[in-house]
């Protein structure tokens, strides 16, 4: 699994639970190192060992932690670059939802060896959507749930999100877009990034 994903897990655990707990997680996982490198590739089973060690050490269901991780990735200042890249997807939340179809391609444009599962948005009716998360990265739909929730806050929109089961091995997230500009979102300016 790509180092960026492993590093995201590390950043989330370190920031939320502290560096000591992360060390305990890595001790239990038994990989022989503590820090992941964002730009290296690691065997998938190493990531799986880390995730199951997290459940044991942090004593929380994995799906909950993965959703929190999605929220962390959007709302934590450490991950500001990622929030900005997601905000490039659309000027409002609905446009952002539609841009998710392109997310794996966009990710690959930035980092050519980063492969994310395909995403497909289907409009069921006005303000009613289903996001289909193709299989390939276990827990990805939980992380996406957290990202969708945090991005709604970022745009200041009110949404209701639900896991709506599986279809052909793909996880489905039901999105109900209740209100635009429900609260004050965070600002986004194209040129805010200093190069």
């Amino acid at each position: 699994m790509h180092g960026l994903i492993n590093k995201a897990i590390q950043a989330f655990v370190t920031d939320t639970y502290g560096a000591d707990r992360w060390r305990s997680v890595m001790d239990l996982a038994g990989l022989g190192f503590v820090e992941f490198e964002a730009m290296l590739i690691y065997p998938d089973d190493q990531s799986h060992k880390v995730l199951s060690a997290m459940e044991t050490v942090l004593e929380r269901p994995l799906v909950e932690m993965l959703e929190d991780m999605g929220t962390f990735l959007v709302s934590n200042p450490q991950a500001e670059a990622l929030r900005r890249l997601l905000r490039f997807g659309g000027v409002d939340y609905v446009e952002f939802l539609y841009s998710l179809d392109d997310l794996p391609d966009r990710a690959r444009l930035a980092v050519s060896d980063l492969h994310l599962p395909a995403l497909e948005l289907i409009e069921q009716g006005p303000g009613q959507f289903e996001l289909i998360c193709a299989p390939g990265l276990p827990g990805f739909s939980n992380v996406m749930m957290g990202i969708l929730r945090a991005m709604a806050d970022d745009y200041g929109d009110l949404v209701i999100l639900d896991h709506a089961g599986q279809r052909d091995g793909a996880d489905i997230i039901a999105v109900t877009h209740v209100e635009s500009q429900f609260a004050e979102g965070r600002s986004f300016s194209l040129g805010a990034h200093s190069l």
Partner: protein
Amino acid sequence: MMTPQQLSDFASKICPMHVIIDASGKITSAGPTLRKLRPELEWDGADFFAVFTMSRPRWVRTVKDMLSSAGAKLHMNFDSEPQTGLKAVLAPLPDGGGFLNMSFGISVLEAVQDYDLTSADFSPTDLTIEMLYLVEAKSAAMEASRQLNMRLQGAKIAAEEQAFTDTLTGLKNRRAMDHVLARMIAAGREFALMHVDLDFFKQVNDTMGHAAGDAVLQRVAQVLVECTRDADTAVRVGGDEFILLLDGLTDPSKLENIANRLIQKLEQPIPFEGKMCQISASAGTTLAKGAPPRDAATLIHEADLALYAAKNAGRGRHLFYQPHMEMAG
């Protein structure tokens, strides 16, 4: 046939950075994004060359030149600050005027900051937003790679540092000495090479064990460092053999002093687990100065001869290399 107003409305939708001029070079229409860049300017009726300065191609100096430039890539700037660069292409209009479509070109990165532009300021088919996305994404990825490179560089330096260090004593090892010595000789430095060999070390090792031997070696390293300056190099070249490279120091009386102080300190008993380890040392020194310059192997050989002469003269002594020692050896 379209009226000028219809053309202007139509163009504003698909070309938010267009300018229409009449045959005399007066602006009759400007797109909304362009207007946003100069909100104070009275666009309608303004003289094109009062607003923009043409930079390339050089032959375009007048309205007439510009109107005949159809299809060519034009480079221009705003006349006033900030002098944002723009690219443009002109198509002639039937009434004798011209339609210019503009874009920022590479200056877009500054432009979005200078003018606080948003997605709505660009045509939906314009790839600028994708380009800005890509610039940020690639910068973030590049930064992550740069940090990885820096950490790898740090690890490499640490590994090299270790490889040049004798792990028991912390002194430099033989490999490190070869590097330092070669560099000093190549630079034509004057220096002294002192070979120090412990006396009675084997007895300590045999009677009190290797742990005691290790403690003695660590104490010896400490003494060598204490008796030399930071610029000097202390090396453990073998089991109980050491070499000192004393940079810029070739005064025999000073060297004699250093060697004697060293031997004296090493003769002080070294405590280990309640017992005392007693050793001494012999030393031989050669001076790297004067012509012709000798190579590393020769210098080490000369210091060896001096050392063995010192040992033969009854241990705990220091001698300088003399040419006659070659015969004796």
